[in-house]
């Protein structure tokens, strides 16, 4: 929960971190296995296509095709590695230098998140216990810190 809270706080604070989280498919990693495997799929396929990019370059030139292929492949390897390492470093730096990482704020945010989650669970429980009625429908939901109880006639 704390990890998620920290990530949400950082995303609210910085657009750069939101882009980073989006690139690392952070949304999927909040799910339980095996659904979270989905987070690897898109980035890995995109990187694999750099091999096809190398073949593109090799096909486009008249001479020294293997050399061009090797150069582009090397560029792909170096940039992928550099991108990965620099993005990880940026993420770590952002976490260390953000007010979100302060213990007190993190604890408050964590408690808020736990309360929201508990309220959602409570709403689900209440909704499951509602009996069918011919005159009106009852729907129970939770939005933030509010439990809403709606009667539709």
């Amino acid at each position, binding site marked *: 929960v704390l990890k998620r809270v920290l990530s949400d706080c950082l*995303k609210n604070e910085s657009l750069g971190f*939101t*882009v*980073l*989280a*989006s*690139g690392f*498919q*952070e*949304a*999927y990693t*909040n*799910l*339980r296995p*095996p*659904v979270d495997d*989905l987070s690897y*799929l*898109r*980035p*890995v*396929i*995109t*990187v*694999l*296509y*750099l091999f*096809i*990019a190398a*073949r*593109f*370059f*090799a*096909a*486009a*030139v008249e*001479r*020294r095709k293997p*050399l*061009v292929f090797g*150069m*582009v492949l*090397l*560029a*792909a390897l*170096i*940039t*992928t590695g*550099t*991108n990965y390492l620099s*993005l990880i470093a940026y993420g770590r730096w952002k976490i260390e230098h953000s007010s979100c990482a302060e213990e007190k704020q993190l604890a408050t945010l964590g408690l808020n998140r736990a309360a929201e989650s508990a309220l*959602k669970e409570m709403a*689900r429980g209440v909704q*499951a216990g509602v009996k069918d009625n011919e005159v009106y429908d009852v729907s129970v939901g939770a939005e933030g810190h509010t439990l809403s109880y709606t009667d539709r006639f």
Partner: protein
Amino acid sequence: LIGATGAIIKFLRLTFLRPIERFLAQVISISTDPAAFVRERIRLGDTTNFLRSAGFFVSAISTAFLAEVATLYRLGIGNLTEPYYWAFILLTSIPFVLLSFLSVRFVAPLSFKDVLHLSFHPIGAGVFVGAAFAWWHRLLLDRWLMSAISQTSDLILASGVKSNRTSLCLSEFCLTASKTKA
């Protein structure tokens, strides 16, 4: 009326379906035989051809954007205001294009525009194929989870309960099956 309907269908086909068909054909061609694609479709130095490849890249990024919005919405995770995968792709592609340009310059006379032209297609196709696979994986998973929930619900009914509502939640994403004994 029939003539008007036919004209509208033809217009829709030409406006929407034809470009999609062309785009998919290009993705398949790039993925299966890149060398043939370059020979047949890429003309370095031709501005129209360059703009076409840029259009292909924009289409691919748009698909990734739509896939991300749809997935975030369906799974109920993240915010719909944060599908920035396209921005991530753009930013991380810049070093590849620059380094390819610098390294290839030593062995072949390719201009920066040529390098950009050659990069648009494979990077765009990679983004699209990744989004398509993620989407397909999610659909399969949905079907698998729904069938598991349905079977659990049937088992509960078989135990003598008159009706039940079974839910499976993965984080905040829940699938529910309601069944009543006939």
